[in-house]
């Protein structure tokens, strides 16, 4: 490479670096810094490995009491027969209808139950349950489905260990988009 060529290349690299720096600097920078501690009340995401699960615990028996008070009107006695989705079922999947999906035959991770109850239930008063209550309801649903024992305690350590039957039955549709 001749010296003038190299000089042009260097100049081009410099220009590129400057442009990049300039475009970075050009954002208005109006985002207000905030600590994770200040976000805690909103940070309700639970990951399948248990990341994000809060302190606390609950048992199926405790869950049964809360269920009878706050859930039964929509989800029915013993988690079935209500106007909302059945929570307890031995239905098997045959054919492609989504109507057959249940927690037991389809949901791949037990953490999803905790996550969904805590963020969205009860339907009329979401976020009104304490973490112990959410653990207890999760334990109740898992036990009624015979996925855990009747006296098993659910907490941040035990819940992610519950192996859901359908876990390995999924295919990534477009792996290259991930």
């Amino acid at each position: 490479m001749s010296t003038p060529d190299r000089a042009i290349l260097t100049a081009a690299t410099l220009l590129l670096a400057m442009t990049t720096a300039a475009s970075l600097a050009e954002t208005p920078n109006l985002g207000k810094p905030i600590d994770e501690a200040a976000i805690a009340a909103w940070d309700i995401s639970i990951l399948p490995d248990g990341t994000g699960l809060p302190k606390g615990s609950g048992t199926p028996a405790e869950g049964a009491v809360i269920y009878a008070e706050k859930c039964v009107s929509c989800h029915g006695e013993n988690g079935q027969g209500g106007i909302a989705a059945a929570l307890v079922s031995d239905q098997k999947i045959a054919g492609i209808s989504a109507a057959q999906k249940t927690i037991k035959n389809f949901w791949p991770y037990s953490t999803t139950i905790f996550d969904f109850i805590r963020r969205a239930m009860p339907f009329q008063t979401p976020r009104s349950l304490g973490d112990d209550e959410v653990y207890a309801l999760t334990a109740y649903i898992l036990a009624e489905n015979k996925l855990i024992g009747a006296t098993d305690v659910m907490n941040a350590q035990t819940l992610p260990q519950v192996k859901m039957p359908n876990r390995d039955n999924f295919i990534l549709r477009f792996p290259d988009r991930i």
Partner: protein
Amino acid sequence: MARARDRNARGRNLEAAAGNGLIDRRALLGRGMMIAGAMGAGIGPASAGAEPLADDPWSLEVGDPMPLYQVPSKFEAKVARTLSNPNFEPRNSHARTPHHLLDGATTPNGLHFAINHGGVPTIDPEKHRLVIHGLVKRPLEFSLESLSRYPMTSRVSFLECGGNSAPMFSPEPMQETVQALHGLVSCAEWTGVKLSTLLEETGIDPGAKWFIAEGADSPHLSRSVPVKKALDDAMIALYQNGERLMPGNGYPMRLLLPGYEGNMNVKFLRRIKLVDQPALSMYEARTYSQILPSGKAYRFYFLQEVKSFITSPSHGGKLKGPGLYEISGIAYSGTGRIEKVMVSADGGQSWAQAALQEPVLSKAFTRFRLPWRWDGGPATLQSRAWDEAGNVQPTRAEFVAARGELAKPAPVLSFPNQHYNSITSWGVGTNGEVKHVYA
């Protein structure tokens, strides 16, 4: 006489597009119009019987004052969304777009489809906050006012529920309108701030592979999205067709992921958390994982694949006698631009290429049109779209072979399966009635 013969010869040329009356699309472009007119002659009413014209009452008095925010004419009251939960029972609510009553490629804001899982929240824009945190260099909080000072970008994008067209999984053609079958897709111009711009400010930890988006609505709806999409074309949308988002469409801000299933485009967006793994939230772990004939299920479908359907004529309509009609519909692809749309009037035995309304935009509705002369006999109208990546809308046989079919029809408002993008067929009877058929 010689010129007339020549014109008719050209007319026959232009007509030779495909079977059962399909006319070459170039007839739409001007040079064929005179021929189209000629074809109409002899079919239309004779001018001799026309009533003499007189002024109507509205031409003889002062009209109404103008409203601050105008709404359509009272004569257009039937142009409305259909509601799945009109009594607002404690479950989700869908509102479907009346495609058979609209034209063009933009969905008016009042008719944009919506699904809300816990009602439409009333959000004070002054108090709403968007937080970006997790695997970032510095967590940041944005107000609507601060976002409004960022560089804005506008793009036209369709939005489609992953469960749109679910009645098409039925083993028999459900006798429903295009609104009931395909009303959970709409198209608007969205204006907002690119998510990548905000992530430049927060910085991205190299361990971040996904982000969880969460809404401020009562179910705190959340979905996991690859960071790859955030750095591509994801947007925090603040405006819909030039005005602030409609409440049911996510006011005051929503995530826009062009081409990806509607549910992922989280509305009332309040939180984005960068993470190393997807959350497998209820909507991705259960609802939007589709059961396949093998018994396994797809996970992370994301893409709304290439698709089209004819909106006029369509189910429930009635042709008023033989003559010239325009077949018109909508095509779109979550992968990019529509390359071409083919139309058939004989159930797929022969096809003619439709004219595409410009501009043809990536991941947006493209209106297609084709002239058709109905001879009064039976006809089966179909459209089939190709996108610029070479993806083609599957035939029904191909689709059912890959994705299966229900054992029996499911309620039309249910979502027995998702991501249907195969061909829709409208059968025209000799009485002119248009019905949904499988072909």
